[in-house]
């Protein structure tokens, strides 16, 4: 299904070794300015702060949408298209795109909340379709408050494809 030696095949082999590996990270405290900027970026009016504690509530998919919480990797660690990939150098030119998501919202995310992420790559599946071969990877992210309360979770699917024009070579 995946041509041997193709960038996608190389990526698939790397990704398989990550399946089931759990990563946990303390993402720090969500601040009000970040939430405000997210509102502006998605075209929503700024929310009023809660009268009881002056906190600001984030839009529902705020946590799920953040790509990097810390400084993020240096440019030389990114693939050609800017995406963070394992073994990026081996798969430069690979194309990535969000394919969908299932989100469950348990508790609103408020400014001042410490957030801990638990992330696991669940599946990596090669497919073949009209637009050529692809790899679908599904990752489960759980966002918890510092005291362990589950805030929300999302199961995200990303599709990877060979560099544009690769199949025509």
């Amino acid at each position, binding site marked *: 299904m995946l041509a041997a030696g193709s960038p996608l095949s190389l990526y698939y082999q790397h990704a398989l070794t990550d399946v089931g590996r759990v990563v946990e990270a303390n993402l720090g405290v969500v601040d009000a300015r970040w939430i405000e900027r997210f509102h502006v970026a998605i075209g929503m009016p700024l929310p009023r702060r809660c009268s009881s504690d002056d906190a600001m509530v984030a839009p529902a998919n705020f946590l799920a949408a953040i790509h990097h919480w810390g400084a993020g990797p240096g440019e030389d660690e990114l693939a050609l298209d800017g*995406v963070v990939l394992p073994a990026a150098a081996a798969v430069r030119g690979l194309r990535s*795109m969000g394919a969908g998501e299932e989100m469950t*919202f348990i508790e609103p995310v408020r400014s001042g909340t410490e957030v801990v992420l638990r992330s696991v790559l669940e599946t990596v599946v090669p497919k073949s379709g009209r637009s050529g071969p692809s790899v679908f990877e599904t990752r489960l992210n759980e966002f918890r408050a510092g005291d362990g309360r589950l805030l929300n979770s999302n199961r995200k699917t990303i599709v990877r494809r060979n560099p544009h024009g690769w199949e025509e070579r």
Partner: protein
Amino acid sequence: MSITEQPRALPPLVVEPTEIQLFRFSAVTWNPHRVHFDDRHSTSEGHDGVLVHSHLRAAFALRCLTEGLGHLARIDEFSYRVVRPAVVRHRLEYRAELIDGQDLTSRWRIWEEQRDGGVGLQGSAVVTMMKES
């Protein structure tokens, strides 16, 4: 608002994301993916221009729900599937239609209609109407 009082369909949310909006979304989410800000790169990948982030499109779909149902609406679940890319400066229309519900909880079908009439994103959501405190 109980399920019997809810509208069967919500007013569509119409947006036409600009390069500036995409840049700001990339910045606030710290997303360096070039398809969202580098036209030449995005075109080299076979797209018609820079692409709207799937998470931004999800945020538009959620806005359609929350703005249509009001501030007492609490989203419990939302799932979506991206059917095809959305390109900057193209008109996108987000629509929500009631599937069913009981008491204060309802299920909605949500989709993104692109300027050629095709569907770009489709999904569903579960919403609970909170009581005014």
